[in-house]
């Protein structure tokens, strides 16, 4: 934590990227471990946590975050460059650390400063991990219908309710929970975002085994769990704004980080497929470029203090299209992923192929994204 920022690297993203590249080229053991195909998710989490620890100790993952919160300064462009460089050196995904680019920007912008100043370095270094508790059994696309309640009791809120599709809860330390602090009728105006300690008594996490064999999602029950009022993110009853801030990243800028790995899949797994046409490979390259360009615009906007807003939905649609076109080609070139995923590489390909069939659901179903565009961007009746 005592490392001082290098002003040159803060000011020059290109120089920073070159420095990270130089570090990767020395093949640190944590990086070498992370580039191997690891189908077992729990092992992958451990290996990626170690890589995050090494990146933090070397200082690289601290660039892109404010010094006041334990970072070394710079912007989201630094983060975009770091993950792009890691992907170029063979890292296959952000595995369990996607929330560094989904939740953490919102925590840094709207979270309680004292808490985030401790939590951000702990997350960046892989020591702690985060989950996102939005959806409920009866509140999926209709998020504003959620019923998990937070009731003030002295200087703490007591949270009771049930969340589902809670990402990475099994592996998480903290969960950002959207709970109702107003009446049911208040809909989106009566919601507040809380940071809940998943280790606290009264929290029960049931991991959900997914169709691709991983257990990234969970059902989480909160039974009268006390949360200090100091752990509210944003304002009381301002949870919708927090949720929209997160979704701007989840649907918009996150696509930048995801597309970094798509080039790797295209070059590494698509290009060899004999049953895949040159045209399909070229089209996939175009799809990736569309994601890179729109999400890159999001990175620039966020770096300058603006946000993508509802335009992030367009980036998410393009990301889904790219995921599908690349993974269609992966399947076409790798029949073993359906019949005989016996080696680690093929087993991982199978996981990723199957996951590409559900990317149109996370972060708001594709149909909801299309409605958002129709209503907010096109202003249709």
């Amino acid at each position, binding site marked *: 934590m005592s490392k001082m920022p290098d002003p040159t690297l803060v000011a*020059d*993203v*290109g120089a*920073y*990227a070159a420095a990270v590249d130089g570090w990767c080229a020395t093949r640190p053991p944590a990086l070498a471990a992370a580039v191997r195909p690891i189908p077992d998710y729990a092992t992958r989490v451990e290996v990626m946590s170690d890589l995050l620890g090494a990146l933090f100790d070397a200082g690289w993952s601290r660039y892109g975050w404010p010094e006041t919160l334990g970072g070394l300064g710079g*912007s989201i*462009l*630094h983060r*975009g*460059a770091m993950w*792009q460089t890691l992907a*170029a050196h063979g890292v296959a995904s952000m595995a369990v650390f996607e929330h560094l680019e989904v939740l953490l920007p919102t925590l840094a912008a709207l979270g309680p400063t004292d808490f985030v100043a401790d939590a951000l370095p702990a997350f960046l270094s892989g020591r702690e991990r985060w989950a996102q508790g939005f959806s409920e059994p009866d509140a999926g696309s209709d998020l504003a219908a959620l019923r998990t309640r937070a009731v003030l009791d002295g200087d703490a809120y007591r949270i009771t309710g049930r969340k589902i599709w809670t990402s990475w809860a099994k592996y998480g330390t903290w969960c950002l929970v959207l709970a109702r602090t107003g009446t049911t009728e208040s809909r989106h105006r009566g919601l507040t975002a809380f940071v809940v300690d998943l280790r606290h008594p009264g929290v029960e996490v049931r991991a959900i085994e997914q169709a691709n064999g991983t257990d990234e999602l969970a059902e989480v029950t909160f039974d009268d769990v006390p949360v200090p009022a100091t752990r509210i993110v944003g304002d009381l009853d301002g949870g919708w704004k927090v949720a929209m801030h997160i979704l701007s990243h989840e649907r918009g800028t996150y696509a*930048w980080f995801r597309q*970094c790995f798509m*080039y790797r899949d*295209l*070059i590494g797994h698509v*290009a060899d497929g004999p049953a895949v*046409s*040159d*045209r*399909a*490979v*070229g*089209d996939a*390259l*175009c799809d990736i*470029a*569309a994601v*890179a*360009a*729109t999400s*890159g*615009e999001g*990175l*620039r*906007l966020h*770096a*300058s203090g*603006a946000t993508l807003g509802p*335009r992030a939905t*367009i980036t998410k*649609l*393009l990301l889904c299209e790219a995921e599908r076109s690349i993974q269609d080609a992966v399947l076409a070139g790798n029949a073993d992923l359906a019949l005989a995923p016996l080696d680690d590489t093929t087993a991982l390909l199978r996981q990723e192929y199957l996951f590409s069939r559900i990317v149109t659901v996370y972060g708001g179903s594709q*149909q909801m*994204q*299309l*409605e958002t*565009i*129709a209503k907010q*961007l*096109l202003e*249709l*009746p």
Partner: protein
Amino acid sequence: MSEPRSRDHDEFLAAARAAVAGSTGADALDALGWWDLLGMLDDPDARAATFALFRAHGRELGDTPALGALAAAPYFATDDGTRTVMAFSRPATGGGFAHTLLGTPVTERILVDTGAAAPVLVEAAEVTLTPVAVPGRLTIHAVTVAEGAGIPVTPADGLEAARARSAFLARVAAAYEILGAAEGAFALAIDHANGRVQFGQPIGTFQAVRHLLAWAVTDTRAVESVTDVARDLDVAAPPRFDEIVKALAGRNGRRACERSLQVLGAIGFTAELDHHHFHSRVLALDAVAGTSAELATALGAWVRAERPDPRIAPAVLSA
């Protein structure tokens, strides 16, 4: 991009739309002082203004020889005041090459470069121009060049550099024109969705129609975004990025027109509505400087053979 830059781009586009909508041929280009910009393409603002013309061209169905003029510029070191346009060449069905001139011909000299032989400059009197009648409100001529006509052109920076720069400029400009035309088709569909009443309500209230339109705007936003990156990065763009831009523009431009047509229904497939002009404009531009099918196929073969690194670096995004 920063807000002030975005405002500048909006102003360039508004000025270009007004000029293109208000006059045709060289007059529109003269009104903008557009020819002067061709010597200043290293300047980001001049480049942005130069390209804005093409988006306006598509959106307003303008008819100028700008695309051929832009494509010809890299072949000549200095502007001697003589306006040269390039005819776009492609392999002809029966062998040899077919040459196409886009826009109202206003020039004394035509550059012909098939890529298979040295480029030549021919005087207008040395060629036969055969009008091609397709919708799109774009004057198109098939160019027949007499054997042995013209004088060879030797670009100052070397032929390959001139060809590469010409292709880059033409592809990015054509992508902008496709974008503008697709936006024109899309605007008609939006009007229709808001105004056409069926089952007692505007058809824009029906989810099936809303989603078609949302996909169409997604198609065009993708084109806008990659084309803006090419404009802004220019020579710093990743390798073969102009081909990616043009392939995506042709593919997505057609998709956006098709989705818009579906929203419009039968009226969109008539001469009574401009949709067919926008659609035909997209088809014409897709066929220039490499079709989306040709380019995507070539890009795929390139990825396979060379395993290139076509990433856009965040460092250049911040420039």
